[in-house]
């Protein structure tokens, strides 16, 4: 690359007396501020019989607290010109508001009120249970490939904590009780299990004082029980899935790989860019263009704070046997492991990594205060260090071809820990 491009996310780092980590990150291109609270809890913390609970609980966080009656959270934010949302993943749960800078006190007050005094009734629980069931139907049960990919994760992993989906099963959702909600809140939604990030246009001294006033007297709780996320080494696993809603065949392949920010996971991030990062990537060019066997190729290397998956998903032409697609994928993996990445290709990947940091996305990257807040929050919750968001990119930009080769040889160019699912369509999807 020519001239150096700034990619650093600046921040100030505080810990309140109750253990709440508070980060401020300046970004003053518009009078806008992001408030984000991330809790260290996700679907991995759910025991058998309680799948989907972390996500159902996320919905409960919008159902009222001591000073914010039900429905008022939405009203406060949107009628003041802001936007809000929340999400639950395998390893964390986050809540955020993007607000006009003048409304920062409102955002902080809303987050503090629900952290200190969530109030949930049976009626609200039942209502949100119904909403989440519709969410499951919308995103999984009524969509082609979605049930297959949910099943795929269950067989790709061996440890229950990693296997089950975030949305959970209908049966388990039915079993959730008000007592579960209260216990979950006490255990996981404590200030010492959370990070608060304020990014954008704020005034540090004034707003740090306000944060202390609103959050510092929320009592801490004992640390939540640790979860065993380890994965055993195993032989290849294969399955055929008949999807009644799909009309085009597909193949999903994954390998279990080490957790984020290990040497191997870092190197495999680069391997993922080479193999499936966009339309110049090796698998796209080979499968879609040269051999003309695939309709689309997607995938990537997860960077969970736990054993992760290197995932590939190929929609292929019905007249091509899935074994042929599979064989080509393995040929490209073998080529990467034997020949590595030529300098020009590696340079291109590095340029893309830097450019992606300046993405236009509201949830990702340096242009949006919310993107900055999320980057810092993931780094803090997953790595214990907000600066790891900056260090991560520095490390990725230093990775050399031989490191990629070594990681690919060890983790991908092998049937060990591999899972393959052929998805056979049953629907016609007739062209009208």
């Amino acid at each position, binding site marked *: 690359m020519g001239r150096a491009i*700034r990619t650093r996310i600046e921040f100030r780092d505080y810990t309140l007396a109750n253990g709440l980590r508070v980060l401020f990150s300046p970004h003053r291109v518009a009078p806008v501020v992001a408030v984000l609270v991330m809790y260290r809890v996700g679907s991995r913390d759910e025991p058998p019989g309680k799948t989907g609970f972390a996500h159902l609980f996320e919905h409960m966080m919008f159902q009222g607290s001591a*000073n914010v009656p039900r429905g008022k959270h939405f009203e406060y934010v949107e009628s003041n010109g802001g936007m809000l949302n929340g999400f639950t993943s395998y390893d964390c749960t986050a809540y955020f508001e993007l607000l006009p800078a003048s409304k920062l006190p409102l955002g902080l007050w809303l987050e503090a009120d629900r952290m200190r005094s969530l109030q949930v009734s049976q009626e609200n629980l039942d209502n949100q249970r119904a909403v989440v069931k519709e969410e499951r139907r919308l995103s999984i049960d009524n969509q082609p490939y979605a049930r297959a990919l949910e099943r795929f994760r269950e067989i790709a992993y061996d440890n229950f904590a990693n296997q089950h989906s975030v949305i959970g099963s209908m049966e388990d959702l039915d079993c959730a009780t008000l007592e579960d909600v209260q216990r979950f809140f006490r255990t996981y939604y404590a200030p010492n299990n959370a990070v608060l990030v304020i990014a954008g246009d704020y005034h540090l001294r004034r707003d740090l004082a306000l944060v202390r006033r609103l959050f510092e007297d929320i009592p801490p709780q004992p640390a939540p029980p640790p979860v065993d996320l380890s994965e055993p080494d195993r032989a290849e696993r294969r399955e055929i899935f008949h999807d009644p809603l799909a009309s085009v065949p597909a193949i999903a392949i994954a390998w279990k790989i080490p957790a984020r920010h290990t040497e191997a996971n870092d190197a495999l991030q680069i391997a993922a860019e080479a193999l499936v990062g966009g339309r110049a990537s090796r698998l796209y060019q080979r499968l879609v263009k040269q051999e003309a066997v695939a309709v689309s190729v997607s995938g990537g290397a997860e960077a969970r704070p736990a054993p992760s998956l290197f995932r590939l998903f190929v929609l292929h032409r019905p007249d091509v046997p899935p074994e042929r697609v599979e064989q080509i994928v393995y040929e490209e993996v073998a080529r990467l492991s034997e020949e590595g990445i030529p300098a020009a290709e590696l340079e291109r990947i590095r340029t893309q990594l830097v450019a992606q940091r300046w993405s236009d996305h509201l949830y990702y990257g340096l242009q949006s205060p919310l993107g900055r807040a999320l980057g810092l929050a993931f780094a803090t919750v997953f790595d214990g260090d907000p600066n790891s968001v900056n260090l991560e990119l520095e490390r990725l930009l230093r990775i050399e071809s031989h490191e990629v080769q070594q990681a690919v040889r060890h983790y991908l160019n092998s049937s060990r820990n591999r899972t393959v699912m052929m998805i056979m369509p049953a629907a016609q999807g007739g062209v009208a």
Partner: protein
Amino acid sequence: MKFPTVPPPDHPMGELHLPLPQEHTLPNRLTLWLIPDSRAPRVELRLIIPTAGRAFDEETMVGLAAATARLMTAGTRRRTSFQIEEEADRYGGALSVSANAETALLQAHCLSQFLPLMLDLIADVLLNPTFPQQEVEIDRANTLQRLRLQRTQPDFLADERLRKALFGTHPYHRLAPDEAALQRWQPEHLQAFHAQHYRPTGATLIAVGDFREKQLVSLIEAHLGGWQGEPSNSKLPDPPTEPAEKGDHHVLREGSVQSHLMLGTLVPPRGAPDSLELMLGVNLLGGGTNSRLFRTVREQYGYAYSVGASVDYYRRVGAFVAHAQTATENTRDALCQIQHEIRRLTEEPMSPQELQATKNYLVGRHMLGWITLGGIADRFVQSVVHRLPMDYWHRYPEMVQSIPAEAVQRACASYLLPHRMSVVVVGERIP
């Protein structure tokens, strides 16, 4: 200190600075809207081709406009499709062309240091596409598979059916390619469509980002100055003002566990009288989490996860659309509730508080759209596509805030009446 029972007072706040584009017209009649902005080391580019969208396909070649747009990046006289992708990646960017209802849109971005190289690539794609036979065949086969896939997706099926119900035979109804046409077109058809429609006269190039205005104008002149001509006179028939097929339409999708509901009707286009008034009413009904549909259909009854209403704008008409996805057994109840809320909007006065909340919601979203370079660029794409005054978005907050409740209700009562609605349900048979 005691925890406050109401939100602490607001902070004072600085003004949002909204840039106005600098307009230039090149000798070949290409218009430039340039906004230098150094907030990110990046440049966003949007080129709007006014008559290269789906509606300009001939009846016998529906899908050709979209294929032409898609395949502009499939090879040029100087570059293969791989070289195009590889170069865009090297510039920390991306480049694609797509066809919308009326316009085609070339979208690109890159790290600012690579802007001259990116412009060379864009010019090549724009002026010299060759539509290689082999690429056309790959695209044909994969488009057919994608079409089969789309026909299994409830949202696509609903959208496709609703457009037909609203627009009848008017070209605005087109969403997917016609399969017979897809089998037929050859590189020369794509060449001809390109030659006819991709012309500088009437086209607008928007650039937002880290560049110097004078330098960029010379660069664009150097790369696109040789682009010549005007599009052959393409006129669209007048769009309908009333839906072609009102009433209920069911699309059977076997194995569905949910019904995908869409209700729609035709409304005035962006910038027309009544359009902002109606937009306010539609957002009060179904914009965001504080809207009536969200509060009742989701939060009160638990019928749906996703529910809302919005207006899709075409150049000469708008389409009001309300949607929800609900368990098959709740289909009738959810539909009734949505219809009830629409009727209430047309019949009952709204409270000043509720209207003010909606105004603030719209103005707030508007403001959040100015955070990123791409957000700014896309705002001005809207201005170009809908021929809005250049300062439309600057005046938008004031225009929204000054609309009285009676005007909102009058607009809703004129356009959102039950007998003007087309209702589409995609799913299993309803018990």
